[in-house]
């Protein structure tokens, strides 16, 4: 079983837009060789969407339908 890492904090704007952290990122703020500087506390919706398009492994977004439910 994978050991839990540090507590991950996603900012309110992203939560309200339907984003969720998935997988096991090393922390809320890190440097990724492929994706550059990541900071879940200050990330904007536009950056989050761009990351998902580029197959960033630690973010997912609920559809509008799922959000309404």
């Amino acid at each position, binding site marked *: 079983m*994978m*050991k839990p*890492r*540090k*507590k991950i*904090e996603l900012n309110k704007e992203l939560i309200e837009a339907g984003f969720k952290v998935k997988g096991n*990122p*090393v*922390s*809320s*703020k*890190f*440097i*990724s*060789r492929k994706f550059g500087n*990541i900071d879940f506390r200050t990330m904007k919706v536009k950056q989050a969407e761009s990351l998902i398009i580029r197959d960033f492994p630690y973010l997912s977004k609920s559809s509008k339908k799922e959000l309404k439910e």
Partner: protein
Amino acid sequence: MLNDVTWETGKQNMGGLKDSIYVTEADNIDLTTPLVIDSDGKTITGDIVLKSATKFKKMYFTKGTGKLDFNVVGERDGKSFENMAEYNVPGAEPANLATVDSMLNGAFVAIVKDGTNFYVLGLSKDEEGNVTIDFPVYTESVTGSTGAAAADKRGMTIVLKSEAPHSPLIYTGDIDLDDAA
């Protein structure tokens, strides 16, 4: 592991370190989930996990001054590597001076980046392939000066050194910059 030595024509091969130097105390590394070496024998797969409330510190250096040297030392049948990162920190900012002071007598792990790879100093691979902190990084030297003439360099040249049975390991994981719990 003895491989064919190859080179792909047209591949980029620019010198010098870029980005920043990332340093954390060796005690901060959490190896309860062991790091794994890729089948290439040199690349650490997965993330370096740090203990709660610790992080890698990001250290600026003057571009064009950062380099990673890895040199064989010792006698025949007893050879190993000295892996050294050298870089210049400009100025004499109090926080930077205090950082250097605090790094004089302690064990660290450092990550540096060139045009192609991240390299880890202070983590090493034993004969069974386990990643250990048996040979951490220490400050080898700090040469600081205000300079004398207006055009002289004002700052510090820092050399971090780790001794290891191999050249630096390559790191493909993420670098933790968050000291939250």
